[in-house]
């Protein structure tokens, strides 16, 4: 037996304790109500297993994941250059800022119906909504990144012989990396909100669709399956993203350790 730290300082023990407490509460709550109102963890687990066996759950997860990833990647691909351009050029900032400042307050959900009318029932309408969700967050964060470039770094680069283009690619862009990565992470979270509402209104598949249709069939435990899947998918995607940053972009995060 190891001596030293008290048990409550071991993070894994605390995680396990916290989760156990959660399930205990769930059991207690479910035992006092009907399954229709609040299904027990066992009931949800059974629905989970059933849906994995018949392959339907994997289909829902896959399609939701594909929509989020596609829209998020395209949205980031547009938002990063847009943010760099707006951060670096006063002209482009003035040109585009009214739109950014106007649309970033309009939640993507308010465009669900319009997106259906304009882009149809297919994948495009959902992906467009995710692009919309992503682009503003990524753009605004990237602009903030460009704005906070250390002026000493720019001056140093200039007297080391860098021209304007090189300053942009070798100083400004690397300085914004922590900011745009933060923007992308936030956008990923918001994309989950958007996709569920989009799939609730018009889709034949997806986690949002699963949650919504289960309500029609009074299958409360399937709603729980949808919710738990969303949480796990989000956690998995975020973990992969964070792992990727640690592997590929680690040196750029030292930025935060500077001062």
């Amino acid at each position, binding site marked *: 037996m190891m001596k030293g730290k008290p048990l409550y300082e071991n993070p894994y023990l605390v995680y396990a304790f916290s989760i156990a407490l959660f399930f205990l509460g769930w059991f207690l709550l479910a035992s006092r109500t009907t399954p229709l109102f609040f299904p027990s963890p066992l009931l949800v687990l059974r629905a989970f297993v059933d849906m994995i066996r018949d392959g339907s759950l994997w289909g829902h997860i896959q399609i939701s994941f594909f929509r989020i990833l596609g829209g998020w990647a395209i949205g980031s691909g547009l938002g990063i250059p847009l943010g760099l351009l707006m951060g670096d050029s006063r002209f482009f900032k003035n040109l585009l800022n009214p739109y950014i400042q106007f649309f970033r307050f309009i939640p993507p959900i308010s465009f669900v119906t319009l997106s259906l009318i304009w882009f149809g029932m297919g994948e495009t309408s959902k992906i467009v909504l995710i692009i919309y969700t992503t682009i503003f967050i990524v753009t605004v964060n990237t602009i903030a990144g460009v704005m906070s470039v*250390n002026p*000493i*770094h720019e*001056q*140093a*680069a*200039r*007297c*080391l*012989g*860098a*021209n304007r283009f*090189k300053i942009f690619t*070798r*100083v400004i862009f*690397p300085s914004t*990396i922590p900011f745009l990565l933060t923007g992308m992470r936030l956008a990923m979270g918001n994309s989950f909100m958007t996709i569920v509402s989009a799939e609730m209104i018009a889709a034949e598949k997806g986690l949002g669709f699963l949650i919504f249709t289960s309500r029609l069939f009074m299958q409360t435990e399937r709603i729980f399956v949808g919710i738990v899947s969303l949480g796990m998918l989000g956690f998995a995607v975020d973990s992969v993203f964070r792992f990727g940053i640690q592997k590929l972009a680690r*040196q*750029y995060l*030292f*930025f935060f*350790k*500077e001062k």
Partner: protein
Amino acid sequence: MPETKIDVRGLCKIFGSLEKPGGGTEVLQDINFAIGEGEILCLLGPSGCGKTTVLNIIAGFQKPTQGEVRVNGKFVDRPGPDRGVIFQEHGLFPWRTALQNILFGPEMMGKQNEESLALADQYIDLIGLRGFQNHYPHELSGGMQQRVSIARVLVNRPDILLMDEPFGKLDAQTRASMQVLLLDVWEKVRPTILFITHDIDEAIFLGDRIMVMSCRPGRVVKEIDVRLHRPRDYDVITAPEYLEIKRTILNLFKGMAQNQLAGQECKTFA
């Protein structure tokens, strides 16, 4: 008489505008000096006297309101790799290792070859950073960071170093060893150096000449030749000539402080 490297004539700088209500602030008033090849000139003065503005104008970061600066006979209108600037904050790129920072200059000039790598290697030895070349700036001490930024500038082979209180944030011991290191580098490479400081001892220890500046508007109030033998080591600080110079400067500063108390330090134009 060595060839003139930097020639500063009638430099004035006013921030804001004298015509507008609220007025402007006259930061520099008629600054004149020249620095010869291989010379170390120390610009000494209290904080806020415009020393850094002089350096920024020579570096090409700022434009003078009046007057002109010539480097190697050519007018300065922008920064360039012929004038290496070392800032008080090291200004290293945090996402690059020490070696990658040193190689930034050659990279910018399209010289990513064996030769610049060998040169970078040579400067790593010169500034005593062997073994730390693959560390990131945040993994280095303040003194080491400043060494990297000196090497990063030297690798471009500038004939001029513009140093803006580069050791100002270091502790006393590190600062002393950095001063010795700088003189050592200077003996080997012989760049022309404009060194800005508010530390009297630093100015005397390093400089061939000292220009003492007064406050707002920044003016040169005295020019002092430092005739101490080179190569210098730290024993010099007890030499009678050294103490004589120090006394002169202290008296100047005392006079300035009295003027300040009399309310003459700030001339803001209404």
